[in-house]
């Protein structure tokens, strides 16, 4: 029963990712990407990772989808004629993907045999908070630095050209 649920989840995640790539309109692709994030969230919950699952759901399925929607709303949408022409071009580029994924899925399912890991592993404790704050302090500093870099990067990107004095 457990493996059946895992198979269903893995297949749905792969299909959601395929849907995100194959969809013609970018809005639907962004929604499909959010669906992929939701599937990953369910898998994380199943594999005893609730904190990572909550992060994945709130940031990846929520915030990043909102960023995609905002970006799409600030760019020019295609007209109906442009969309029809584009769909034909897209089909010529993307028709190979589903067969490739299908063949790769069959090949991987045949060649990857069920295997077990018998040798012991060193564990770092069960509490994610103590692991993050005690063992991975450099990661916290890195996260803060990356967030600062992102904020300053966006400020520079959207800086008013008149105030900067010269054209970039």
């Amino acid at each position, binding site marked *: 029963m457990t*493996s059946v649920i895992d198979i269903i989840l893995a297949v749905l995640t792969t299909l959601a990712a395929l849907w995100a790539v194959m969809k013609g309109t970018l809005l639907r692709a962004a929604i499909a990407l959010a669906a992929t994030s939701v599937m990953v969230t369910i898998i994380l919950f199943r594999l005893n990772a609730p904190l990572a699952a909550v992060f994945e759901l709130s940031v990846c399925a929520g915030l990043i989808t909102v*960023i995609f929607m905002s970006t799409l709303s600030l760019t020019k949408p295609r007209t109906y004629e442009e969309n029809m022409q584009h769909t034909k071009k897209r089909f010529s580029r993307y028709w190979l993907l589903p067969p490739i994924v299908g063949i790769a899925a069959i090949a991987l399912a045949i060649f990857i045999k069920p295997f*077990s890991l018998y040798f012991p592993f060193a564990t770092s404790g069960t509490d994610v908070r103590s692991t993050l704050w005690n063992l991975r302090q450099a990661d916290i500093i890195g996260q803060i630095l990356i967030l600062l870099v992102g904020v300053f990067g966006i400020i520079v990107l959207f800086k008013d050209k008149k105030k900067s004095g010269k054209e970039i």
Partner: protein
Amino acid sequence: MIDNLSMLLKVYLTAIPLIVLIGVYCIVVTHNLIRVLIGVEILTKAVTLLLIIAGYVTNNTAFAQSLIITLIVVEAVVVATAAGVILNVFKNNNSLHVRNIKHLRG
């Protein structure tokens, strides 16, 4: 227990390369900058799954979760900054085609 674990490994080690394949195909084939970003996002989903599977089978989910949280923070910053770059490219060229990136100066 071991049977369940080995089956779990087989299932997800089959799915993860497929998701990587989909993401890489999307990045290679597309001409749209937003779709390139969607491809990158799909690749990070595959990495997230790989990290948690590795953590689960080695009984190290706490460590895997801390790495996933770091990955998600990096992912959000990358997407926000890339969206800003894409909007500036669109503002300057009125198009989202990847060839517009070649016209950047500096």
